[in-house]
Structure formats: structure tokens, C-alpha cells
């Protein structure tokens, strides 16, 4: 995508080089009015520090907590957030769209 996300992927590389556990979250599908386009990245470290966004702030909290599991287990996860999903509604994708986010460990 044509976005200035170099700092995000560079941070993922740098954090890993510092020996941290790192996960990368990527928006892989969107329906309706999604706040961030497909391909948007969020990078998360083992302490929950993050950079970038997958939803402009709506569901980052939930993605970060799932990312910590992914860092611990090494198993990638596909997350879905949307208004039809009770839990997702709670974390607040209030724009009315649905997004699917792939979370993987950088290893």
C-alpha cells in the first residue's frame, strides 16, 4: 500500500533484533466502512507496547491482548471484529464495519 508504514515494519525488525517478543497484526479483510484499509499494520511487543493501527483506535486493545497470546504460543490467529459480534461490539468497532485481522509472531 502507499502509506508511510515503514516505521512500523522497521520497528518490528528493530524490536526483534533487541531480543523482544514481537507480533505483527495485519488487516486482511474489511466489509462496510472500515477505518483502516487492508494491509494496515500494528506491531506489538511482549510488554504490550504497540505502533501503528488496524482500526484507528477502535479495537487495538483487543488486538494487543490477542497478540500477547500469539507471542507466547507462536501460533498465528485470525481475529474478526464487527457489529454482529457481541464481544467486538463491546470493544467498539462503532463505525459499523467488520474487519478481519491476522496476527502472527515475528520469529
Amino acid at each position, binding site marked *: *500500500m*502507499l*502509506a*508511510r508504514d*515503514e516505521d512500523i*515494519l*522497521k520497528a*518490528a*525488525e528493530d524490536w*526483534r533484533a533487541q531480543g523482544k517478543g514481537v507480533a*505483527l497484526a*495485519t488487516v*486482511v*479483510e474489511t466489509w462496510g466502512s472500515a477505518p483502516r*484499509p*487492508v*494491509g494496515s499494520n500494528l506491531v506489538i511487543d511482549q510488554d504490550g507496547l504497540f505502533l501503528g493501527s488496524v482500526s484507528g483506535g477502535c479495537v487495538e486493545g483487543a488486538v494487543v491482548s490477542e497478540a500477547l497470546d500469539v507471542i507466547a504460543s507462536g*501460533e*498465528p490467529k*485470525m481475529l474478526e471484529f464487527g457489529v454482529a459480534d457481541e464481544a467486538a461490539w463491546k470493544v467498539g468497532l462503532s463505525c459499523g464495519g467488520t474487519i478481519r485481522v*491476522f496476527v*502472527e*509472531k*515475528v*520469529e
Partner: protein
Amino acid sequence: MKLDILKSLNAERAARRAAIVVTDVASGAQRLVRAEEAAGDPLAELLAHHLRTGKSGMVETPQGRVFLTVHVPPPKLVVTGAVHISQALAPMAKMAGYDVTIVDPRTAFASPERFPDVPLIAEWPDVALPPLGIDRYTAFVALTHDPKIDDPALLHALARDCFYVGALGSKKTHARRVERLKAQGLDDATIARIHAPIGLPIGAVSPPEIAVSILAEITARLRLPAKSEAAKAAS
């Protein structure tokens, strides 16, 4: 993502080369395809399409669903003419995410006082443009009104396949430009890629308004599919 894939990807991006990460959604398996390798890939056709649009997305393949994360370089804007319009266009384009460079051999125009915070090259296009690495992720705008400066720059921009090429001037001015470019050996199809008169027709009068119309037209070329109605209006 394997760290070596991430490292290779970041190296490609730092060098302003496009690349795609192909992720098998079911297994999590990944590979990096550099733009130069895309033609020889089993998914060549799909990859070529995504490299062209710059859009990431989920795709169905004979091997199952894969996600393509497409990385194309951030867009650049190169302008000939350190003129009044450029003084408005440069900061606007920077806000929109472009790396902006202004070229004008006339040192009275190309002065840092007139263009704080914008890279300025006070050289003729034949010297200034080749090192800029103008490519298909670059928009080029000719604003000097001077054929000695704009024409060679337009030739360079067209040869480098810029995604947007625009030139300031009325229909009459452009008709004369077309004659000169034909005399230089350009064919009609190539000349037709030049947006002139430049900018979307929004009734722009002042230099900043003209800058808005130019940036809007560049945005349309960058973001809209080539065949859409809005893209046609912008062309």
C-alpha cells in the same frame, strides 16, 4: 513472519522497490516476492495486478486462500518550476504523504527563502532529474511555462513511466507543446498521458487553488481505477 523475510522486505522498501508478502492463511506459511521476481512466480498474473494497484488483499488460488500484503514505495512528487503554485503545492503534497522535490535552474526562483523545508535543485532538468530515481511511483508536474525547462523534464518523466504527468498551460499552450514533443519523436499515445490543462476543473483561480486542483488530480490517478468515471473526469 520469519525475521529474514521481514529484513528482506524492509531492505526492498528502503531501496524503493515494490514487493509482496504472500501468506497462506490456513497454515501461516509465508514468502516474499520481489517485484523483479513476480513474473516468474506461480501467481504471476495476480501479483502483477496487485503490484499495479498497490492494494493488499485476500485472493483465492488453486492452493487455497492467500493474503497478499503489497508494499509499493511511498509516492514522490517532482516539480519543475519554483513558482508561486509550487509554493502552495509543495507543503500540501507533503501533508498528503509525498516526498517533494522542486527543480528550477533559475536561482532567483529556486531560493530557500521561497521554499523553506523543501528540497530544491537549482539545475537544469538534464542534470537534476536523473539522480532523483523518478519511477512509476512518482508524480511529475511541469509548472515553469518555459519549454527549455519543462519539455526535457516531461520527456524524462514520460520515459520513466510516472503514474501522473501534468503540465501547466492553456489548451493553446499545450497544443504548441504537443507539436514540439512530436518533433522530438513522441507518439500520440505517450503525449496523451500528459494532463493538460493541468488539474481537476474546480474553477481554481489563485495559485493555492490551482495547487489543490493539481493535488486532487494526482490523488485521483493514484487511487482510482484507471477505468472509473471519476478517473476519466480526472484525465
